[in-house]
């Protein structure tokens, strides 16, 4: 059969559509990474945190977090004597420039680093109307920037206040657990720079990860356990006043 002009005009758009599907194949960023072999979490050792703000600065630089917004931040708690239900909490500029010396004496003072808890049953992904945020098969909560409408449902749904709308892109943004690093075999930027080892990346699906021994032998808690979010950021030595 001869291909006439009419045939060609009909064929070209079909070929173009077919080609689009051929080139749109999933790009493989880290070829040796098996998504089904990991279940990421983080361990935060509160008695080790010195509130230096290294993690906040590293996170901002690694992920280009805009000024005034935080994917991770540090809070300083002051609990006066028995007032466990009324802690005084401050976080000047997210603790990015460390904390000014506090004059408060008496009571309990300590730092609590916060970040996305990468919940297994995350409230934020459940409310997304377009499937722009999701829990990956390796347990990280991510945002699909090209799908996000910026409706802010997820910002309201997160009980930990870990999400914000990026003022430049107008899409939801949050901690990715440095997904671009952990899939290449590196640790997160915050864990890399933490000078005291207060933050440690952990892989719950790796039987040789020291996290298993730690969880067995320490008093570990997650934030807001009553919310049943399946939070995977474990806090060691956390005071009952922490919200």
């Amino acid at each position, binding site marked *: 059969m001869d291909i006439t002009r009419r045939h060609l005009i009909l064929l070209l758009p079909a070929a173009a559509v077919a080609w689009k599907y051929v080139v749109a194949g999933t790009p493989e960023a880290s070829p040796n990474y098996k998504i089904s072999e990991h279940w990421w979490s983080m361990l935060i050792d509160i008695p*080790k945190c010195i509130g230096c703000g290294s993690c906040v600065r590293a996170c901002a630089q690694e992920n280009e977090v805009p000024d005034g917004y935080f994917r991770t931040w540090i809070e300083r708690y002051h609990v006066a004597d028995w007032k466990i239900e009324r802690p005084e909490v401050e976080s000047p500029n997210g603790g990015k420039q460390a904390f000014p010396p506090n004059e408060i004496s008496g009571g309990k003072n300590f730092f609590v680093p916060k970040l996305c808890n990468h919940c297994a049953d995350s409230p934020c992904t459940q409310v997304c109307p377009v499937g722009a945020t999701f829990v990956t098969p390796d347990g990280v909560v991510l945002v699909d920037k090209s799908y996000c409408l910026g409706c802010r449902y997820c910002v309201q749904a997160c009980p930990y206040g870990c999400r914000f709308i990026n003022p430049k892109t107008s899409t939801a943004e949050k901690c990715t657990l440095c997904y671009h690093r952990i899939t290449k075999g590196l640790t997160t930027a915050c864990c890399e720079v933490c000078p005291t080892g207060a933050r440690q990346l952990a892989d719950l699906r790796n039987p040789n990860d020291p996290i298993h021994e730690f969880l067995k032998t320490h008093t570990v808690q997650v934030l807001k356990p009553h919310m049943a979010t399946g939070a995977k950021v474990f806090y060691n030595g956390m005071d009952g006043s922490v919200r």
Partner: protein
Amino acid sequence: MFKDIEHLIRLAVFIVIAVVAFVVLRAAVVPRSFGQYGHYRGAAISEVAARPIAYAGHEVCEGCHTDVAEQKKQGKHVVVACEACHGALASHADDPTSVTPAKLDTAILCARCHEANSAKPKLFPQVVTADHSGGIACDTCHQPHKPKIEDEKPSAGGKK
């Protein structure tokens, strides 16, 4: 059998066209990887993973700067990663000649960790910099990679 059967045929044709149009449009509009892992675009995972890194990691630094790595092993700062103080330097690791790290101001840098604060763990070495050094750069006396001063007298100030 039916009178005016063409009415039904017209309706059937319309429904067939509508269904075909729906299937074709859906295939064209929904990304191919949507639903690969769940109700989201599977390709988004590798798009997030494709981001370039900024922090090289201390193993990369120690590959070249073996002398500093050795020096750090003799002091307490062995646990502190290079980029905790020097900043993100993956660009320097990629191109060591044209990208060079900035000189650091130890008067600000050291105080971030070691300035006394009641919320810090009691065993962590802390000083009140105003009393301890009067604001001069810490590396005037201390070598940051191996901070303990060997002939330090116990009365030199600063609690351990």
